[in-house]
C-alpha cells in the first residue's frame, strides 16, 4: 500500500479516475498549470493535457458548464476552492444540477463531481471558515460526502466520480498536509454510502464527520482515561446517511452525541438527532449536539478557538452526558 497524506490521496484518486474514465475532466480556478492552491491537483495537467484546465473566477460558469458537459456525456470534476464561494453560484447546484435527472424523468443525467473544502483554519476570516454541508444536505438530488482520512479521501472521491448523480465531495484544508498513512489504491470502486466505527465503546455513541472526527477521537481517548468508553461513529457519507449504523450504536450505548464543526442551529446534527428520536430508540439521556455556537467566525485564532469545538470541550460535554 502507498503511504499518502490526505492531499496526496485526493491527488491519487484524481489520477486514477482520469486514467480509467476517459470522459472525466478536471477544471476550476488554478487547478491545472499551478496544480491547485493546495497542490492537490498537481501533475494532472501534464499527464492529461486538455482534459485539465484553469478557469476564470466564475463559479457560475464553472458549475453550470460542468452540468452542461455532464448532460453531454462528460464526467466533470470541478473544484470550488472554498465551500464559502459556492454561495455565489448555488443556483447551478440546486436549481440546475439537482433537477436534471428528476425533471427529465431519467432521460438526462448530470454525473458531475464538485470538489470543495471548508471549515475554519487559524486566521481564516468569516468568509473563509464556514462549514456548509447542511445547506447541501437539504437538497434532494445531490449526494454529499466529507472524508476525514487519506483512505476515505481516496475512496470517496473515486466513488463520487463513478456515481451517475451530482456528488459534492467536501474536503478540509487542515487535513491535506496531515500525516502519511497507508492507502489502498486501485481497489474496486466502493458503493455510495456507509459509516465507519473509528473507535468502539459501550457508554455513548458519538456521531461525527469531517475534520471534527479527529478531535472527537482525541476526546474519546481522554474520556477512556476516565473510564468512559465512547463509540466514535464517523459518517463520511451524509447523503445517503447510514442511519442504521447510528441506531445500532445507540441501541448498544443508550446515549447519543453528534459533533460537527458547523454552527448548531440548522446543522445536520439536528437531522441525526431527529431521525434517532423518531425511530424511538430508547435512550438513557437526551441526546446532545456539539458544534460551533450560532455566530460568525472571527479571524483571530484566540477568538475562533473559543467557538469551534475542540477535544477538551467535546470531552467535557460528553462527560456531562454520560455522568448526567
Amino acid at each position: 500500500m502507498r503511504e499518502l497524506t490526505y492531499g496526496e490521496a485526493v491527488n491519487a484518486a484524481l489520477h486514477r479516475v482520469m486514467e480509467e474514465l476517459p470522459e472525466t475532466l478536471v477544471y476550476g480556478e488554478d487547478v491545472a498549470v499551478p496544480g491547485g492552491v493546495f497542490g492537490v491537483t498537481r501533475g494532472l495537467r501534464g499527464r492529461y493535457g486538455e482534459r485539465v484546465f484553469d478557469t476564470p473566477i466564475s463559479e457560475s460558469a464553472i458549475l453550470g458548464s460542468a452540468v452542461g458537459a455532464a448532460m453531454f456525456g462528460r464526467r466533470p470534476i470541478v473544484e470550488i476552492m472554498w465551500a464559502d464561494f459556492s454561495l455565489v453560484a448555488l443556483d447551478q447546484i440546486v436549481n440546475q444540477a439537482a433537477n436534471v435527472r428528476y425533471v427529465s424523468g431519467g432521460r438526462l443525467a448530470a454525473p458531475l463531481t464538485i470538489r470543495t473544502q471548508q471549515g475554519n483554519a487559524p486566521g481564516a476570516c468569516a468568509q473563509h471558515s464556514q462549514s456548509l454541508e447542511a445547506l447541501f444536505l437539504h437538497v434532494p438530488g445531490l449526494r454529499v460526502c466529507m472524508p476525514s482520512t487519506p483512505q476515505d479521501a481516496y475512496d470517496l472521491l473515486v466513488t463520487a466520480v463513478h456515481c451517475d448523480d451530482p456528488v459534492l465531495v467536501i474536503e478540509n484544508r487542515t487535513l491535506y498536509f496531515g500525516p502519511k498513512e497507508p492507502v489502498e489504491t486501485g481497489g474496486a470502486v466502493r458503493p455510495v454510502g456507509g459509516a465507519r466505527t473509528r473507535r468502539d465503546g459501550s457508554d455513548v455513541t458519538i456521531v461525527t464527520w469531517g475534520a471534527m472526527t479527529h478531535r472527537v477521537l482525541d476526546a474519546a481517548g481522554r474520556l477512556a482515561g476516565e473510564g468512559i468508553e465512547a463509540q466514535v461513529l464517523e459518517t463520511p457519507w451524509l447523503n445517503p446517511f447510514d442511519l442504521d449504523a447510528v441506531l445500532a450504536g445507540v441501541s448498544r450505548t443508550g446515549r447519543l452525541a453528534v459533533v460537527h464543526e458547523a454552527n448548531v442551529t440548522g446543522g445536520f446534527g439536528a437531522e441525526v438527532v431527529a431521525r434517532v428520536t423518531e425511530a424511538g430508540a430508547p435512550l438513557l439521556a437526551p441526546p446532545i449536539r456539539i458544534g460551533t455556537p450560532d455566530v460568525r467566525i472571527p479571524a483571530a485564532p484566540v477568538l475562533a478557538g473559543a467557538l469551534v469545538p475542540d477535544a477538551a470541550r467535546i470531552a467535557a460535554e460528553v462527560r456531562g452526558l454520560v455522568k448526567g
Partner: protein
Amino acid sequence: MSERRLADLLAMWRIRAFEEQVRELRAQGPIVGSVHLCIGQEAIPVGACGELDPQDALFATYRGHGWALARGVPAQPLFAELMGRAGGVNGGRGGSAYFTAADYGFHGENSIVGAGAPLACGAALAGRYDGSGRVAVSVFGDGAMNQGAVHEALNFAAAFRLPVVFICENNRYSELTPISGMVGNPRLSERAAGYGMPGRRVDGNDAEAVRFHVRDAIEVAREGGGPTLLECMTDRLVGHYIGDAETYRQPGELDRIRSREPIARLRAGLLADGVPEAEIDAVERRAREEMAAAAAAAQAEPLADPATAREHLYA
C-alpha cells in the same frame, strides 16, 4: 425562394397556433400555472433552428415553446407536457417553463433567468472531447444580459473560444419593465466587443435575417472561431405571462408592434411577390388544424401517475 418563405410562414404559424391553443387551454383549465407565450417572436426560432445539426445543443428559456417546435419536437407531447400528461416530453414534470426534449436536440427551457447560458458552455465544451463538432445555442432575453451567470458564460465561452451562439431575444422588456431604463447602453450587442467576440444586432422579426446571422455564427463556431452574440430585436405581441395586464404599454405601442410583427410582415411580402392569398391562408389553416388536433389528442391522454412522483431522483 418563395418556397423557403412559405416554409417559414408555416413554421411561424405552427408556433403561433400552438401558443394560441395554449392560451385557450390555460383559460379553460387543462393548463395551470404561469405560462410565457412567444407570440410575436416566432421568426427567431424559425430562422435559427434550421441551421442546427442533430448533434447541436439548444438551451432556451421559459419562453421556449417556439424553440422546441422549431427544433422539431412534436406538438402533441409538448401540449401533453403543459397539461401534466404522462405522455408529456417530461411526463409533466417540467411543465410550460422547464421542460427538456433531448431526443430532439432540445436541451431544455430554464426558468431561472440566465442560468441556461453556462449550461450551453458545457455542451460546447463536451464537443471538444467527443469529436461531435457540436455547436451550442444559448437563448435568453434582454433582461438576462444583466444577470451574472450570463456574463460569466459569455466570458467563459470567449476565453476558451467555445462554439456557442448566444441569441439574445431583445423584446424590449424584462418582464414588466422596459430594458431601456435598466442598462447604461441599450445596444446590448455592443457588450460583445468587451468579451472579445463578434456582436450583431439582428432584425429578429425577419426569419431570413436571423437565418443569415445564425448560419454565419455557427460557421465561425464550427471552425473554432469561438462564440458570437446575436441581439435579435423583436416584440412580444402578448403579455409577459398569461394574465399580464400589460399596463406598461405606451399609447400606440401595440399598433406599432403589430405593424412589424413577423407573420404579418412575411404575409405582406409574399402577397407583394404575387403569391396567391389562398395559398397563404392555406398555410395558416393547415397550422391551426394541426395544432388543434395535437392539443385535442394530448388532452385526451391520461394524466401523469402520482405513484411515479418519487421516481428518478437518483440513478
